[in-house]
């Protein structure tokens, strides 16, 4: 018997779907709020007076007061927080101490580089991991399968700041296939500067994704419905696609979404190595220079980006697998 008539089936499915989505949305907002509080505390929890630290001992009283105002740390903590939130709501994220440029305009200038890096990387991940994962699953018991397992473990453990340098040594110094560093905006010219950084990140990401796909296919292939299909006489591409690949894709696609979020984190180191003027490089510079308003702004904005990407991946994850829906 069907669990419900079709009319109420649709109803029920919708209700089941809606609830996790709402919960995830609420969670994303909660994370964003925490991020905001974290960014707010960032300046205020520094041991000592940031204005004094930045200005040094010789600073005059007026200078210190002016600096405090610039940093938004004058007045009581609740009033500071109120100002902080209302400024943000108006799109005012403060001003960089170094360049006196609004934080938002710096981010707007630097973010596209990081986003291009993310898109290039994810595109490359799919291109590399799909065939690799399928091959590793199909030839699991051959030398290729074993080599894949060991190789994946080694690559995943190799830090990008080492593999990146080695790749520069190989491709930019030895054979001149990529620039050693730098960036020029504009598609497709920027790909010349982005392919090597993207490949570096994929030394980690592609094996991870291929491994997820591989184990997912292996898991699927031991399901009884696969055997049932073989016995029914299903063959060829139809068999591989419908019974092995399609039921295995959900975790892979979901992982891809989370990867987009992690690339933003990788960008911090990759942009330094390849000298890409993205958001990660800006953040590291800001931390080094103790440019607190800039650190605060970038932590919040790039964190928001990561939270948004994760939320989208969550949605896709819930929507893809019919089995996940009932849970």
């Amino acid at each position, binding site marked *: 018997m069907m669990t419900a008539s079709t009319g109420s089936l649709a109803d029920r499915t919708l209700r089941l779907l809606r609830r996790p989505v709402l919960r995830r949305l609420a969670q994303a907002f909660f994370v964003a709020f*925490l991020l905001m509080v974290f960014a707010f505390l960032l300046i205020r929890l520094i041991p000592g007076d940031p204005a004094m630290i930045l200005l040094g001992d010789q600073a005059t009283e007026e200078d210190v007061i002016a600096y405090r105002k610039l940093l938004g740390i004058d007045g009581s903590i609740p009033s500071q927080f109120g100002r902080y939130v209302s400024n943000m709501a108006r799109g005012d994220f403060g001003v960089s101490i170094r360049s006196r440029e609004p934080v938002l305009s710096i981010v707007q200038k630097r973010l596209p580089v990081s986003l291009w890096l993310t898109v290039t990387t994810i595109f490359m991940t799919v291109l590399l991991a799909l065939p690799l994962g399928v091959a590793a699953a199909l030839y699991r018991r051959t030398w290729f399968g074993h080599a894949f397992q060991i190789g994946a473990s080694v690559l995943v453990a190799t*830090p*990008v700041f080492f593999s990146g340098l080695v790749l520069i*040594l190989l491709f930019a110094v030895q054979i001149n296939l990529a620039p050693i560093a730098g960036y020029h905006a504009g598609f497709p010219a920027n790909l010349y500067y982005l392919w090597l950084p993207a490949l570096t990140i994929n030394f980690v990401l592609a094996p991870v994704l291929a491994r997820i796909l591989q184990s997912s296919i292996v898991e699927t292939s031991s399901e009884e419905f696969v055997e049932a299909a073989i016995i029914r006489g299903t063959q060829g591409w139809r068999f591989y696609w419908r019974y092995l690949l399609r039921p295995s894709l959900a975790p892979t696609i979901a992982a891809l979404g989370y990867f987009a979020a992690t690339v933003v984190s990788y960008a911090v180191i990759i942009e330094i190595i390849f000298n890409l003027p993205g958001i990660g490089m800006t953040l*590291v510079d800001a*931390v080094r220079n103790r440019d607190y308003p800039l650190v605060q702004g970038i932590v919040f904005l790039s964190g928001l980006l990561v939270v948004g990407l994760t939320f989208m991946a969550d949605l896709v994850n819930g929507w893809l697998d019919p089995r996940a829906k009932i849970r």
Partner: protein
Amino acid sequence: MTPGTAAVSPVGRLRQVELRRRWRQLNAESRWGLVILAFILMLSVFVPLLSSNDAYEFVDLPLQPPSAALPFGSDHLGRDLLVRVFAAARLDIALAILGVSVPIVIGTFIGTLAGTTRNPIAETVWDGLVNALTAFPEIILVLGIVAMVGADIRGLLIAIWISRWAQYARIARAKSLALRDAEFVQAAQVLGYSQLRILIRHIMPNVFSEALAYALSDFIFIIVIIGGLSFLGLGVTPPTPEWGAMLAEGRLYLRTEPWLILFPGFFLSLTASGVALLARGLERISRGEDD
């Protein structure tokens, strides 16, 4: 120990037999992992000990290529790269162990407590909090904390502790939630065991084994973070020998003296790979996969 030297005590013999039995139960991956780790640990103990050169002292002309006297060559300040690489191994492995051990204890404890309370309000609040913390962008969190606390070893460790405990809390909570409904825990409740006994004797050991398995893969992440932040100049700073910091120094001589990055980078990767292989091998054993 060779046969014919001191007689092995019966207990020692038993332990040897046990060890040999365990070794045979391992798969190729975990064996390779163990061999690699033993190799690195040995080198990092003995190389600085046996070498007459100091990790901080000038010994030869700067930027000398590898030779018989200086197997890894000398760095830009004329220091023995071999000694520095393994002095760095000591520091990095010690830091990573320190980095893993505090979050695992705190996180597992908090997570198990959270997973075993039956207060619905506490559960909801907890759910939001830990999920939020684990969804928090990792490197950004670490960088933010380092910016706050200070770009040095202390700041690095604090940042790692703050950012990692929630992972263990999440794992411990999920596992203890599952265990809460496991029939053997219900059986313990029916037998009238105290809550404390159930927690310590029945739930904790099962949770902890799960957390330990995660700790191995976490070790890789942490050793890479330590190296990464030091590479950015925000963690361990020169002249202290640390793999990431050495890579940052050597990067300037990439074109002409590539061994300056190849040696420290190789041993950093090898250490992380050893742990990764071990983790992967043990994971496959626990899932009951054969070779």
